[in-house]
């Protein structure tokens, strides 16, 4: 008890000391702490935005743009890193010597070199190896669009963009159309879940599993096709003739985003590969042998016996890798991708000089993200706890 009181007093003293220093310093410099700058106009443009933004928007909106960009690149990188990691992790246990060694080299190289160096290297590769945008421009370009649809340049990748011509908002289109699409996708997801559950039930009762593949396919695609028809889906193609500097139209995925996305994916993929390998190896050999002894086919052994047990080991470190991806995405400033560190903690900080406020907001954002991911992880861990009898 005495120890606690002493600790409390020490903590209070330390905080008071820091606070008094801060107050004295700020007073000496004539500064104050104020978040009023968030409301004033940001004054700078951002090239990759998920929401409406122009240079007249407020610093707060610029920060939101940055937050969405952070979440975008983190989300994309989580998916690709998982795919890459699982692939590499499984291949590391392959019985092909060459593949095994190749994957070991991949894992070691990427794990042992700082992510900052990888981001810079991949960005440099992007700019140096990919063709310039001008190669695609004009009446008689050096390069044609791939299949008339895609252009790969060192400024980024251009793809056709879906637009809805007869849905909500008329030819201009509106966010409501996209909400509809998302709603349809969610409904399809639950539809397939239901079908799978039903198939499980039937299999449990009769021993014969009904084929759900085509039904599921229909559940996914039929609503989308109907929606596309109703809303007048058409494609906005990248146009090489509209502008002398850049392709116009379509979606442009900027080179900084791609470089950061790739770098985060391959770097984290190497760590995930190790987690996957450890997870698979953690399933004792007896399990595989027992399954084989029961006469389960080799491919089924993996999906029915090994993976479900390995997942229990793999998922917790996997989620902390997702956390790392989110945190490492703050290195976007090295390639000029407008994530929250580059907008709020970069240009806004630079131009307003409000260092303390910006850094505090930045830390608060990352903290909220991390704590929410940790909360999800705790829920998962509790639900996956081995229920021993």
């Amino acid at each position, binding site marked *: 008890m005495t120890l606690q009181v002493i600790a409390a007093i020490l903590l209070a003293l330390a905080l008071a000391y820091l606070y008094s220093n801060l107050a004295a310093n700020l007073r000496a410099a004539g500064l104050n702490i104020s978040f009023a700058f968030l409301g004033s106009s940001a004054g700078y443009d951002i090239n990759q935005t998920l929401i409406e933004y122009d240079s007249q928007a407020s610093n707060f909106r610029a920060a939101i743009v940055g937050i969405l960009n952070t979440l975008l690149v983190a989300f994309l990188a989580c998916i690709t890193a998982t795919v890459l990691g699982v692939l590499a992790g499984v291949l590391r246990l392959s019985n092909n010597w060459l593949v095994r060694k190749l994957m070991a080299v991949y894992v070691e190289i990427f794990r042992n070199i700082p992510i900052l160096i990888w981001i810079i290297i991949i960005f440099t590769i992007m700019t140096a190896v990919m063709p310039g*945008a001008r190669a695609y421009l004009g009446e008689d370009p050096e390069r044609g669009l791939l299949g008339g649809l895609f252009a790969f340049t060192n400024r980024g990748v251009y793809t056709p963009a879906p637009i809805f011509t007869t849905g909500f908002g008329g030819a201009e289109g509106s966010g409501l159309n996209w909400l509809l699409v998302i709603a349809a996708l969610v409904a399809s997801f639950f539809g397939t879940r239901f079908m799978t559950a039903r198939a499980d039930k039937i299999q449990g009762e009769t021993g014969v599993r009904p084929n759900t593949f085509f039904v599921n396919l229909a559940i996914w695609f039929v609503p989308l096709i109907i929606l596309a028809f109703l809303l007048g889906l058409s494609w906005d193609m990248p146009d090489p003739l509209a502008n002398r500097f850049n392709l116009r139209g379509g979606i442009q995925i900027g080179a900084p985003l791609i470089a950061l996305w790739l770098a985060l994916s391959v770097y984290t993929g190497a760590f995930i590969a190790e987690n996957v390998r450890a997870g698979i190896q953690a399933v004792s050999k007896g399990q595989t042998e027992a399954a084989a002894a029961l006469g389960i086919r080799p491919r089924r052994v993996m999906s029915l016996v090994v993976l479900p047990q390995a997942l229990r080991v793999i998922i917790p470190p996997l989620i902390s890798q997702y956390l790392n991806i989110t945190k490492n995405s703050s290195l976007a400033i090295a390639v000029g991708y407008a994530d929250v560190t580059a907008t709020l903690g970069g240009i806004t900080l630079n131009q307003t*000089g409000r260092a303390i406020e910006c850094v505090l907001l930045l830390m608060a954002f990352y903290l909220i993200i991390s704590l929410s991911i940790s909360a999800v992880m705790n829920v998962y861990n509790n639900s996956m706890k081995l229920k021993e009898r």
Partner: protein
Amino acid sequence: MRVFLQRITAGVQSAGFIHPKVVENQEEVKMKKSIILGALTIAGLSAGAAAAGTLDDVKARGTLNCGVTTGLVGFAAPDANGEWVGFDVSVCRAVAAAVLGDATAVEFVPTTGKTRFTALSSGEIDLLARNTTWTFSRDTDLKFDFVGVNYYDGQGFLVPKALGVSSAKDLDGATVCIQTGTTTELNLADFFRANNISYEPVPIETNAEGTQQYLAGACDTYTTDASGLASTRATFENPGDHVLLPEIVSKEPLGPLVRHGDNEWGDIVRWTLNALITAEELGVSSTNVAEMATSTTNPEVARLLGTEGELGGMIGLDADWAKRAIESEGNYGEIFAKNIGEETPIGLARGLNAQWTDGGLLYSPPFR
């Protein structure tokens, strides 16, 4: 407890990690201690501390802490031997020569666009000479004092000749690489909005990466201060293949700045800069300054070099302060020619930075 901490801090100080701002002025230290003690008890209610004299600090320390860029050839960059050289660096050295009598007694603190203001307002540096644009909000809201302008700059555009662009207004839809740092992003947004044309900004942290992007064709044009563009172009393999567009889209008066409130120190830096400018106007250079000091008949030269009048004493320095500054670094014209002038790879013309007598903007108030 407080005193105890102070002693231990003194130990760490002698290990070189903590740099006292005030060494001499014991009175002040005591006063501050009591203020902090007061603040500890009634946190936040204590009276404001008196601004410490930067001049006393610098003299006591024996070196000038000067904030510069992390590397912009011509303005401030370490050379192959690690010595800082450049236009902004010379200002720091001139101030050190005037105040301390030794142009090499400067600690150069590399700062980024992000860290520079904190470094100055927290007292880590005494003077920031880092191509920083003098703007209203920096002067007022951020509580700094710009002491003058050592380079009149403006934001320009660098484009490959092969692109066939002759005006920045033709850049509709172009991808623009921006070296972040001064007020570049804001000017760019204003310019394109005013002309109602669109662009794709690519903000780049370091000049080296901006150059790499630009040369690889990942952007159509590269924008930052025109002086910086010239200095960047000088490092290209074929500088002749690239042109600076005629439009200068902003006013960028770049100058050294100090903390607001320490007017004595501000005066010293301001008049050191003015001394360099006046010296060029009056024909005093590093080669003839010693001779001029003894033989001049021009009363203003005499006042500048301290053979007549008491100007040095008025700003708390000795009579030879300006003479030393000019002797060590040369006058404004020499500094310009040596670091960024037409003879150097950077090759900037004087332009706006000529003396007012030559049609430029440099106009120092008189020394009297």
